[in-house]
Each structure stands twice: as structure tokens, then as C-alpha cells.
């Protein structure tokens, strides 16, 4: 279970640079999630770590030892692929035992290990079947099983749940979370789904265009996003953004924009010392709106009310800006009606318009 350090790792295909120099430390025994939109370099990072892609510059260290020259099999890793990558011509038992058989492990030991992992994943009754005879969820388990049987130091997951339907994905996510707690290994998990990232990660690394935007615990990323990208990417439904300007009204700092005028609380105000520009981007999470209109309010026109059960998400308009509002479903909302919503002003986030950095 090594500590993995990326030191200026780069990747280019010809003149196309897909990964600018990347520095990243994955701590021993941690479940690290690399998350970002498609093409952000997260999968490339994982494949370089696995040794499936060569790096164009920099070095990766496992416990201080450089490993970029090592073959995948010499890195003591196991990997779960997005499309499961099972061997179609082998039955499940042989799929799971392939690595052990190559390593010339004694047969009795192989059988015991395969049986143990298969029982753990509830696929014990499928061992004699071929991958084509399994459903998507079962194949997913086999792919996990094949990695677990290896008992490698580091586990890599490349979007392992993205080919499953929503219900199964939720189930597998829970099982993965359980597995994370029971297995003390390094796990590196790549996904584009921020919900997966938030629920699974001990630590999340948010990437965009090959650059690490921010890393931290799920809570840190949600509460203290460093920039617009992280703020918009983490959280569901995602944060609302509006253009606004800072105005001093009678000694009190307000942020104003088309159709809104919100006072800022003391903590936000002290953060603004560094701001040089009065024009900012205002970020308000859908959950920061309330039906309690005793404080600061905004007038929003409800376009659609998406009923989700206990919660509803309202798609509303403020002038031409679309805003999402998350509310309890107890108070029904009619489409087309304009009404007042309260805003928890201490949850407002302000961003520099030119750099996108949080103020």
C-alpha cells in the first residue's frame, strides 16, 4: 500500500497536450476520487498510473521509488474497467483466477481465494458461467472480484459504474462504499459523476482540462470551493450563478444585480478585502433559497416545478437568468407565478469575474 506521488506528470499525443504537468499526492490507504467532465484528463491520469499509457514527462513515485519504467504487472495494481474488460472466452472462475494462474499460484490456494471473493460479492453461483451469460450488474461484480482476488496494493477504478442503469448504480455505489471501509488499500477512482465522487471519496480531486482545480474532502469542496468551476461542478442540483456588483449602502456591503439586492454577512464581507473589482459573479446554491421571507428576498418567476418526492426543484427565472431552487414539497408551487423567496445570505459565494477565483 504505497503512497503515490505524481511529480510533474505530463502526457501529449504528438502536438496535442492532454495533460499539462500534474502534481498530485495520493496518501496511503485513502480512497481518492478523480472527478471532472469528459476530457478533463482524469482517465489519462489513471491509465498512466496503471502503466497502460506512457508518460511524456515527469515521474510517478510509489513510496519514493520511480515506477514509470515499470510494466503494468510490476506495479502491484489491480484495475476495474468501465466496460468490465472480462475475458469473453473464459468462465467467471477462470476470469477471476487469471492473474493468479499466470503467477503460478498453487491450485488449492487459487480456488480458496476465488471462492472467498466470489462469496463476498454474491457471485459464487456464477463461477461456471461465461461473461456473456451474465447481466450488467453481475459482470460489474465479476470485474471487481477479479481485481480483489489479486490482493494488490493499489486498486484503480475507471468509471466502473457508468454502464449500469440508475438503480443498479446506486446499489453498487453503496456496496463500493462498504468495500472501501473494509479494505485497507489505496483506491483511486475515476468518475465524471459528482454524486459518486461525493459519496465514495475520502478525498476528491476535481480536474478540468488536465489541471487540478481543487482537492479535499467532500465537505471542503462543497462548502469552500476555490473557484467557479468547483462550485458549479460539486453539488446537485448545481449552483446558480448571476452577474452582480458590490455596492456600499449606508456602510453595509450589498451585492446587486438585475432584479436582486442582497446584503452580505460579516464573514463574506471580511473576505472581500482582497477584491479589486466591484463586478463579481454571485453564486447561490439551490438549497440556499427558503420560503421564509423575513430576511433578504428575491422575486422569482416559477417556470417548472420538478417534484422529486419530499423535495422539489423549481426552475425559476430572475429576469433572463435561470435559477434552480430546492424546496420542501409541502408548499405546492404553480408554474408561471412570481413570488418571493428568502435567501440565506451567509451561504452566498462571490467569485472574481475575470479569474473565476472565490473571493
Amino acid at each position, binding site marked *: 500500500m504505497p503512497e503515490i506521488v505524481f511529480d510533474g506528470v505530463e502526457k501529449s499525443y504528438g502536438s496535442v497536450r492532454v495533460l499539462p504537468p500534474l502534481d498530485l499526492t495520493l496518501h496511503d490507504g485513502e480512497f481518492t476520487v478523480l472527478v471532472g467532465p469528459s476530457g478533463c484528463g482524469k482517465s489519462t491520469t489513471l491509465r498512466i498510473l496503471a502503466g*497502460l499509457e506512457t508518460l511524456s514527462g515527469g515521474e510517478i513515485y510509489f513510496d519514493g521509488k520511480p515506477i514509470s519504467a515499470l510494466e503494468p504487472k510490476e506495479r502491484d495494481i*489491480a484495475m476495474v474497467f468501465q466496460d468490465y*474488460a472480462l475475458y469473453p*472466452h473464459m468462465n467467471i472462475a477462470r476470469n477471476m483466477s487469471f492473474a493468479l494462474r*499466470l503467477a503460478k499460484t498453487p491450485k488449492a490456494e487459487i480456488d480458496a481465494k476465488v471462492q472467498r471473493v466470489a462469496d463476498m460479492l454474491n457471485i459464487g453461483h456464477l463461477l461456471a458461467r461465461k461473461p456473456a*451469460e451474465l447481466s450488467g450488474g453481475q459482470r460489474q461484480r465479476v470485474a471487481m472480484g477479479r481485481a480483489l482476488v489479486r490482493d494488490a496494493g493499489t486498486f484503480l477504478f475507471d468509471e466502473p459504474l457508468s454502464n449500469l442503469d440508475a438503480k443498479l448504480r446506486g446499489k453498487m455505489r453503496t456496496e463500493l462504499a462498504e468495500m472501501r471501509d473494509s479494505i485497507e488499500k489505496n483506491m483511486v477512482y475515476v468518475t465524471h459523476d459528482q454524486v459518486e465522487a461525493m459519496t465514495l471519496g475520502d478525498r476528491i480531486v476535481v480536474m478540468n482540462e488536465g489541471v487540478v482545480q481543487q482537492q479535499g474532502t467532500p465537505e471542503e469542496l462543497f462548502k469552500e470551493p476555490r473557484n467557479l468551476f468547483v462550485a458549479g461542478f460539486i453539488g446537485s442540483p448545481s449552483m446558480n450563478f448571476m452577474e452582480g456588483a458590490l455596492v456600499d449602502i449606508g456602510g453595509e456591503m450589498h451585492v446587486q444585480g438585475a432584479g436582486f439586492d442582497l446584503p452580505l454577512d460579516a464573514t463574506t464581507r471580511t473576505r472581500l478585502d482582497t477584491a479589486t473589482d466591484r463586478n463579481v459573479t454571485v453564486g447561490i446554491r439551490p438549497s440556499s433559497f427558503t420560503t421564509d421571507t423575513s430576511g433578504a428576498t428575491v422575486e422569482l418567476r416559477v417556470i417548472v416545478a420538478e417534484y422529486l418526492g419530499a423535495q422539489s426543484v423549481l426552475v425559476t427565472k430572475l429576469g433572463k437568468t435561470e435559477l434552480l431552487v430546492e424546496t420542501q414539497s409541502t408548499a405546492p408551487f404553480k408554474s408561471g407565478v412570481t413570488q418571493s423567496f428568502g435567501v440565506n445570505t451567509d451561504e452566498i459565494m462571490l467569485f472574481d469575474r475575470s479569474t473565476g477565483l472565490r473571493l
Partner: protein
Amino acid sequence: MKSTLNRLTPYVFFMPAAVIMIIALFYPLLYMIWGSFRRWSPSQQIGETEFVGLRNYISLWNDPNFAESMGVTLKFAVSVVTIEMLLGVGLALLLDRNIRGMSVLRTLFILPMMIAPVVVGLMWRYIYHPTIGTFNRFLDTIGVERVDWLGQNALMSVIIADIWQWTPFIFILSLAALQSLPQSALEASRIDGATGWQQIWHIKIPLMMPVLIVTCLLRLIDAFKVLEVILVMTEGGPGLSTEILALRISRTATEFRELGVAAAMSNYLLILLMLLTAAMFTYTKLQEARANRLRMAVEADD
């Protein structure tokens, strides 16, 4: 009335193709089968010939020359297909990678297949020429004794020529099969610790197998029908050493002027090839049935 017409529509569209098939395929085929039961010289109309029943077939069965020719054909077909499969698949495994100029190289590799068989025959006849041929001149320069290519070693020589011409066929099909293999399974095997050889042996070859079997059968069917190259190179000689079936059929019809016997011989070959074709179809049918069964099993599970 209208519904009858509607029902007939598909058959109406089907007719032109059916007529062409009947004229171009079934008519000559039936003519040949009919002719194989008759004593028939080229100067006779088929109506004037004498019906001899199975006599042509029986006499062929007991004809040592026919047996010899059959033996040569089998030897030829089995050796060329075996060697071509090994070489073709081997080359495909070697060249399945992205290096600069690979597309040019691949095109070069499949060139022999595109040359007309008669030209191939002529070319190899010059290469094999006892005194001025490329091979023997080369052997002279390196001081090795000359080889009597088209004499003592005629069958080997035609086998070499066929390998030269048809290995590319297996090469391109194997390469296509290789390149359509699931990449992630290969990557998984690398992570699982497979060396290059182990990947080939445990992953690539088993996954290519369906394509390889069909390729092998196609090539086998083709090898039984080979004619032009050998006709140009050796005319079946010396003796009967390279007289493959197709050549013997053509000589029986033209030189020995026994159309009935030639037809019977063709039918023997046809039966052999039909068995091979049936084997191929059975194989694909089995594969399909298997795939269906698997699908059903999965659906039953869901």
C-alpha cells in the same frame, strides 16, 4: 385479388435474380451431373451419348491415377493451408501495432494476392528456372548446390508459390480480427501480469478463433480448386507429381476427351467442397445458437 397480388410482390421482385441463378448456376450444374452418368466425347451432342449409370464414378474410384491426383490435392491443400495459417496469423500478430509507415507496409504485404494467377505462375516459373532462375543463380553465388525446383521438388515448389500468393489473405483477415478485439480485455491481461506471449496464447488467439476457423475453411475450399498457377508452372508434371484435381479434370476433358468422366470427377470435388462448406455453415450456426442461448440465459436472469 389485390391481396393475392400483394402476397406475390416479393416473388416478383425476386424473379430476375432467380432466373439468373437458374441459368448461370443450376443449369450448368445439372448439366454436369447429367453428363457424369454418360459416356460422352466432345464431338457428341449430349442427346447422342450413351447412358452408363454410375460406371464413370466406379471406374474413377478404382483409378490409381485419380487416387494419386486426389492424394496430391490433399497434400497440397493441407500443407499450404497449414503453413499459410501459421505465417499469416504470425505476421498479423507482429504487425498489429501503430508504427510509422505501417499502412504502406500492409499494402505491400497484400500485393501478391492482387496479381492474376497466370502472371504469378509465369513469374515463379522464371524464378524456379533450373539455370537462369533467380533462386538457382542465388544459390550459385553463395556456393550452394542447385535445387531441381520444378523437377524433383515440384510439389514443394508449387506449395511455396501458393504460400507466397495466399498468405496475405490470411494475414489481412487475421489482422482485422486482431484489431477488432476488445482492447480493454488486452489491457486487463497486461495488468493481470500476462507477458506478450501469454497475451497471444491466452487472450488473442482464443478470441480470434471464430475468424480463424472460417478463414481456414475458406482457404481450404480455395486450395482444392487451385488451377492456373500450377497449370502455368508445371502442367501437373513431372509425371503426376503436381497434378491436382482441377488440372486432371481439365486434362480429362480436353486431352482424353472423356467429358463424362471429367464431369464425374468434378462431382467428387464438388461433394468434397460441399462437405467443407457445410462444416463452415454448421460452425457459424453453432456459434449463433450459442450466442442466442447466452442471450436467453441473461434475459431469464434479469
